[in-house]
């Protein structure tokens, strides 16, 4: 490895070294605040180092990693989301009994796995990243050991994720058998000119799609989502919905665009089928949910359904749209789960719709951010979600994906119904439920998220310009 290689890997090194240092510190001195502060600083440093790295990219570390603007964008999104989740976790984790400092160590390892996915150029890194991410997530999901449904969710995720990893690995093996290389570039070279793909390669892609589909919670691999979202601590649900999904999306987009999957009839049908199924099933199952965490889980299924439309556009503009969509979706999801996390205590998780009855009249500020998040998920103007949906629709229509876009529109209306139900609840007459006191960090985080949703909704021009200027594959 050269000096330049190391330079380019600074953000990764920071994310990798930080948990080790925390481990050392924890073995000497257990202090929640110190560990928390150190985590925040390290994440900030990692984010800052991206700008430090920028001048020396694009850069490829043969044969495993590729560092380009696209991956840096994703890396930035992932780190910011991890940072916001860390902010939200402060109060939530603080009140748990038993050891708590390890939570931040695992946040780091999972973030490391996620960031690896953003730069992977080889099946090995792909798999390594996904496994690092998954194994950390098992622990995070089951972090509230005293709660039975937290453990249940952890085990569910453990078993299903292992199975899906097996599928992914088997798919990679099949492709390796057919082509003899695991580097993305070689795979493309071997595939060009073979338009019906050989059976081996096709089954390989199919198996990989199962693995990736599981991680993104796409129908029909979505069964784990509601249970895990419900059982996991609220900040961890936010982490799964943002960091984990975003990273997998990053590699999926890169891989799909490199192999030009959109030109392949077989993959085209598979992806559009999955997309339509995810939208409809996700939204329809959410309609009658009474538990907000489950509801958000189903809504995330639908949202991933919207997002993979982008895969079929086959243009850089599509990728740009997907990045904007992800940014908007991340803020929105963190806002929604953040409010749940802030209102939950160790004894009582605020997850039923009734728990939010009349929230607006008791805690106007967080209820407002919650409303904004829900409106953003529904894609109503003034929020980031609207511009994001508009961007996806625009690129989808440009690529002529009329059926998919029409399904997306229909689903937006279905989705509206259950988001409205929550909003109505927020504004109805308050109930007698006692609410916990809100901390300053929580309020600030929520404020950041709320303002970001508004800014991206009202004045998104600068971000879109930025993305269009720099991001391409």
């Amino acid at each position, binding site marked *: 490895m050269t000096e330049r290689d190391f330079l380019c890997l600074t953000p990764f090194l920071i994310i990798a070294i930080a948990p080790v240092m925390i481990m050392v510190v924890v073995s000497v001195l257990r202090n929640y605040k110190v560990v928390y502060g150190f985590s925040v600083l390290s994440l900030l440093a990692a984010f800052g180092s991206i700008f430090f790295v920028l001048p020396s990219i694009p850069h490829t570390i043969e044969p495993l990693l590729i560092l380009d603007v696209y991956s840096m964008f994703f890396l930035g999104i992932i780190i910011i989301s991890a940072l916001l989740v860390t902010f939200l976790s402060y109060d939530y984790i603080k009140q748990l009994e038993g050891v708590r400092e390890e939570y931040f160590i695992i946040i780091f390892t999972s973030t490391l796995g996620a960031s690896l996915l953003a730069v992977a150029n080889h099946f090995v890194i792909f798999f390594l990243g996904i496994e690092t991410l998954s194994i950390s997530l098992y622990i995070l999901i089951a972090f509230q050991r005293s709660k039975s449904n937290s453990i249940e969710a952890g085990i569910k995720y453990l078993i299903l994720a292992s199975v899906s990893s097996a599928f992914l690995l088997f798919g990679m093996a099949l492709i390796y058998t057919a082509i003899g290389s695991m580097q993305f570039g070689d795979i493309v070279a071997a595939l060009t000119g073979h338009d019906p793909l050989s059976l081996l390669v096709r089954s390989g892609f199919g198996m990989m799609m199962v693995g990736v589909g599981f991680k993104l919670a796409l129908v029909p691999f979505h069964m784990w989502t509601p249970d895990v979202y419900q059982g996991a601590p609220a900040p961890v649900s936010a982490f799964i919905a943002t960091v984990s999904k975003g990273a997998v999306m990053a590699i999926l987009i890169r891989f799909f665009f490199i192999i030009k999957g959109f030109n392949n009839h077989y993959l085209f049908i598979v992806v559009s089928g999955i997309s339509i199924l995810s939208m409809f099933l996700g939204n329809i199952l959410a309609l009658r949910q009474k538990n907000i965490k489950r509801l958000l889980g189903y809504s995330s299924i639908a949202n991933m359904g919207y997002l993979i439309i982008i895969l079929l556009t086959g243009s850089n503009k599509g990728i740009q749209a997907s990045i904007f969509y992800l940014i908007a979706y991340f803020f929105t999801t963190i806002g929604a789960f953040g409010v749940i996390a802030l209102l939950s205590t160790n004894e009582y998780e605020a997850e039923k719709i009734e728990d939010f009855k009349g929230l607006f*009249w008791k805690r106007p500020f967080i209820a407002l951010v919650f409303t904004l998040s829900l*409106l953003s998920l529904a894609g*109503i*103007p*003034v929020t980031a979600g*609207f*511009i994001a949906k*508009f961007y996806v*629709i*625009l690129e989808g*229509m*440009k690529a002529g994906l009329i059926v998919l*876009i*029409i399904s997306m*529109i229909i689903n*937006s*209306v279905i989705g*509206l*119904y259950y988001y*409205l*139900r929550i909003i*109505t609840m927020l*504004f*109805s007459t308050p109930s007698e439920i006692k609410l916990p006191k809100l901390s300053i960090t929580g309020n600030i985080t929520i404020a950041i998220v709320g303002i970001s949703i508004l800014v991206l909704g009202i*004045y*998104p*021009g600068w971000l*879109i*310009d930025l993305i*269009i200027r720099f991001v391409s594959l």
Partner: protein
Amino acid sequence: MILIYLIVILLTGAFLSWIMGKRNQIWPRIISLVTLSIDLILIILFVLQTVPSNKDWLIDIKLDWIPAFGISLHLALDGLSLVMLILTFFLGIISVIISWKEITSKVGFFHFNLLLILAGITGVFLSLDLFLFYFFWELMLVPMYFLIGIWGHENRTAASNKFFLYTQASGLLMFIAIISLYFVHGLATGSYTFDYLQLLGTEMADSTAFLIMFGFLAAFLVKLPVVSLHNWLPDAHTEAPTAGSLILAALLLKTGAYGLLRFIVPLFPSASVNFAPAGMLLGVAGILYGAKLAFAQTDLKRLVAYTSVSHMGFVILGVFSFNELAYQGVVIQMVAHGISTGALFILVGQLYERIHTRDLNKMGGLWEKAPVMGAIGLIFSMASLGLPGLGNFIGELLILIGAFKANILMSCLASLGLIAATIYSLRIVQKVFLGNKNTEWKMNDLTLREKVVSASLVIAILWLGLFPKPVLNAAKPAILKTLNKQKEITFQNPGSKTIDDYLILSTQSFLTTKNTKKAQSTQSHCINSLCSLCSPL
């Protein structure tokens, strides 16, 4: 810049009243009143300063918003939007005043929503960028949803959900249509833009034009509403607080009508002519069916809501008649309906405050108790049935004359609506103010505040009925502009479409003579005689 100020002032007022609402109840009301008055004064000052000119747009301002997609902050004002804006601010002030005693909880947030809706409506009337238009179109939905859902009557939740889902679903269809238009224009010319002025005159195949127009129509016809898509309206109107009903009936419905005039006709000149027979039929169906339903109601507020369906039928009929007379009628009808139906809703609200029921069968003989209220009720019932001398008469008559030129049968059927209107309007007076006392109510007459509101509305409707010329003059250039677009296309490719023969014949013959002196003098004669007809009253 004045156009941006108008919206910014409203938004600032909205946030201010929300913040100040935490202190006490009086501040939000005063702030709202002041912001709306500033806007009204600004726009009136502007009217007084402006010299009449032949420019298409009195003010036109364009700033970049999202340049990557060709989206700009393009606001412009012409006569039509001017008239609608004055109506908006005037009724905005009224709605603040009538809520003075009615709304007592969460006052700050109420006025926040009220001003936000008005800002959205103002934006809709001013936008000349389709994306911006959609943005404002949706912006007025959410606060309206809250207005119905928080301060409404018993079934408010269901009503507000219904309202939101109907309008949002149809709005999304329009959104798809807007994006399609963007691509059709972009592919044809190479410049991708949402700018209205550039999208005007986009060449497209008849079938494409029809599909895209359908998306726009969906949004506008649901808002208007047209019969069969009107389901949300009675619920929303009935359950909303008085100010909400007033804004819904007087302003929100008008955005649909405005959309037809501003977008459907100029953007799809030939497709809209093709659609005209169906459009006129929908209009007539609305007039008659709405009137029938209105007659059948026992809930007074619901009754008034259905009269809206009937009155807006005239607007649809007029829009699809494609001639100047009808369009002038449409403008007058929009304003007059806003004032008269708004006044009726206010009346219902005042009654409800006093006797806590809207059931017609429990009312009766209230004239003795509240003669002033009775008189006001009588005036606006008369306006609703189209009595000469009041605004609605001018609007409906002009529309009927215009429609007669386009389609005699439809016009005749529509005029039956006037009889139906007489029946239901008289029924209001009969059931509420005259007749037997079904229940002995204890109630007092209008207070000074209510008298002022009612008086200003009476003056407005009388002014519109006796001297409609200022409104007609203001809107005339905008109407001619809309019709000219129509004319160019109709002449460019005559015979290329399958249209109701009679319609195209009449449209063309009318348009050919439109610019001659004779035709103009006929028209002005027509209007003058209308005015002289009213003057004895």
